[in-house]
């Protein structure tokens, strides 16, 4: 409202400038107009500056003018300066009007136009023309850019209860963008905070419906998809104009307090695997040996069947030959000597022989 009144006053000031013979009358009006119009708009600044520098001017001008009238009796020297000043103001104002009615919207943006605060229409990418500043205002909103919110602190623990009443330490990121800029601007008091809260709530409710094992393991993808769905439903319920692009679980670990117990499970899994591996290698070995032995027996047996007696004797002699050639032999002719055989001495002799060799 201030802007509007400033606008009107400025216009009047301009007209006064144009009509009045004295620039000083214009500059008299000017500060007051900028007084009302400096509501923080881009032209508020020059107005304020002008005000500060020229506030003492009216009286000074008066003083100079009067002194000039008194001494030279003519107001002529003041006029050209004043008209230049007036024209400068007009040019500045025109430039301002032109610049604030043209908007270039980059490809990822939309320009939401409000006329006196009321939503009017949305500018697409490219070059757009609106009414100048105090009437139309354009808020440029990035709609393509994906924004990321990180939730569940990575440094500190953020424990959530799972469906089987375990606790899980979880960290995740939500990616979102704006799908309806006018809703995003006007519907929620704090869209960014709302997205955070909705994400936390959705993640919590999904985690509370799965087991710890699912949350830590292979069901992550499903959980993420369910969180996205839940978030989108709630945010659409708010008419927030926000599209949730994705949720990524960055970390889902057991709490530190019970981490050792979880490592114990991993160790047990490895142990079990190694037991099974050992058993498998034993099985391979024993099977191979059985097959080898059986095959060898089969081969020999084939030959044996062709001439059983001869083969049997041959095998017997060959074996005894090999065996007896490697051992010390004592042959006792007479029966009854055996009990008195000095076995230790026999062994000693044998050792002596070996050392002599």
């Amino acid at each position, binding site marked *: 409202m201030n802007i509007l009144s400033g606008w009107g006053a400025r216009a009047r000031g301009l007209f006064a400038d144009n009509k009045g013979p004295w620039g000083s009358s214009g500059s008299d009006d000017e500060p007051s107009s900028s007084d009302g119009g400096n509501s923080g708009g881009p032209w508020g600044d020059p107005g304020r500056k002008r005000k500060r520098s020229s506030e003492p001017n009216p009286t000074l001008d008066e003083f100079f003018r009067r002194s000039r009238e008194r001494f030279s009796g003519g107001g002529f020297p003041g006029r050209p300066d004043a008209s230049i000043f007036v024209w400068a103001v007009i040019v500045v104002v025109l430039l301002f009007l032109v610049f604030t009615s043209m908007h270039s919207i980059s490809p990822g943006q939309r320009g939401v136009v409000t006329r006196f605060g009321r939503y009017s229409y949305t500018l697409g990418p490219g070059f757009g023309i609106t009414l100048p500043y105090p009437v139309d205002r354009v808020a440029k909103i990035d709609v393509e850019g994906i924004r990321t919110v990180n939730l569940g602190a990575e440094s500190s623990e953020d424990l959530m209860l799972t469906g089987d009443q375990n606790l899980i330490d979880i960290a995740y990121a939500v990616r979102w963008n704006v799908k309806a800029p006018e809703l995003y601007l006007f519907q929620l008091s704090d869209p960014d905070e709302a997205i955070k809260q909705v994400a936390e709530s959705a993640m919590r409710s999904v985690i509370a419906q799965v087991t710890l094992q699912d949350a830590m393991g292979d069901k992550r993808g499903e959980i993420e998809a369910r969180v996205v769905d839940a978030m989108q439903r709630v945010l659409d319920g708010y008419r927030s104009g926000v599209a949730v692009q994705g949720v990524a679980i960055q970390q889902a670990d057991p709490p530190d307090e019970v981490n050792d117990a979880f490592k114990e499970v991993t160790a047990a899994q490895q142990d079990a695997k190694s037991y099974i591996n050992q*058993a498998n290698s034993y099985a391979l070995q024993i099977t191979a040996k059985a097959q080898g032995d059986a095959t060898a027996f089969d081969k020999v047996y084939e030959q044996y069947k062709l001439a059983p007696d001869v083969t049997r004797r041959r095998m017997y002699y060959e074996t005894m030959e090999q065996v007896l050639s490697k051992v010390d032999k004592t042959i006792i002719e007479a029966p009854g000597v055996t009990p008195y055989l000095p076995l230790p001495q026999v062994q000693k002799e044998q050792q002596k022989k070996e050392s002599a060799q």
Partner: protein
Amino acid sequence: MTSFVRAHPIVSAVLGLFVLYLVASSFPIVPETKQAVIVRFGKPERILNRYQAGRPIGTASAGLSYKIPGVDRIVWIDKRVLAVDMQSQPVLSTDQRRLMVDAFARYRIVDPLLMYIRSNTEENLRSQLQVILRSEVRNELGRQPFAALLSPERQGVMDDVRKSLNVQAAKFGVEIVDVRIKKTDLPDGTPLQSAFESMRTARLQEARSIRAQGMKQAQIIQAEADANASHTYAASFGKDPDFYDFYRAMQSYRQTFIGEPGKQPAPTTVVLSPQNDYLKEFTGRSR
């Protein structure tokens, strides 16, 4: 006019300012995000840009308006969906377990006039809603068993909270859009520690069971292998048990007295009698 300005610069500046003030306060701009109640001498007169469900943005009476300066006053009331947070508070389930619950609600002021009369400011409204939210959440959740508290959405508990909250909030000209549980935590101390402890013991039990399963499988694999081997042996050796006995004895002698290739067996002395089968030719059979 110019002559008047020239004659009384200060007076005209003051006058100009005053005119500006009049203009500014006669034509307020209502932004899209606000509802405005125009109050004349303390009595509500008109409502600008009032929220109506389902009405598209830009069609309500936001924008330039008017009022009588000095007589009418504007009370600004937010039109957007607002948030009220509930600090974490303990909830006792029907099975006497405690849970810390952190909730939030989103609401919209649908009747700015009623809201202005009952609460006056948005801050007042928020703190009033906070109190209602706390008690409603505790009431509704307190009727649930612990397992249902973990995911109150599933049983429609949150819908009940929202409905009963809505009844209360309607008295303030407020509509509750949504109530959600943000966090459910076990209270610090014993409940948390016992949860950790139960997780720990569950894991250790799991570890033991995994090891036992591994051992079991290993034993089964070994036994199967032994059975297979024995089958293979039986199939082969069973063709002639007598020959097998002989064949195996020969192998065994060799193994015992000669040992593995490259290994010296323990020194052995064999005492043979001439009656030994091996030596039966020693004495000459022809005799």
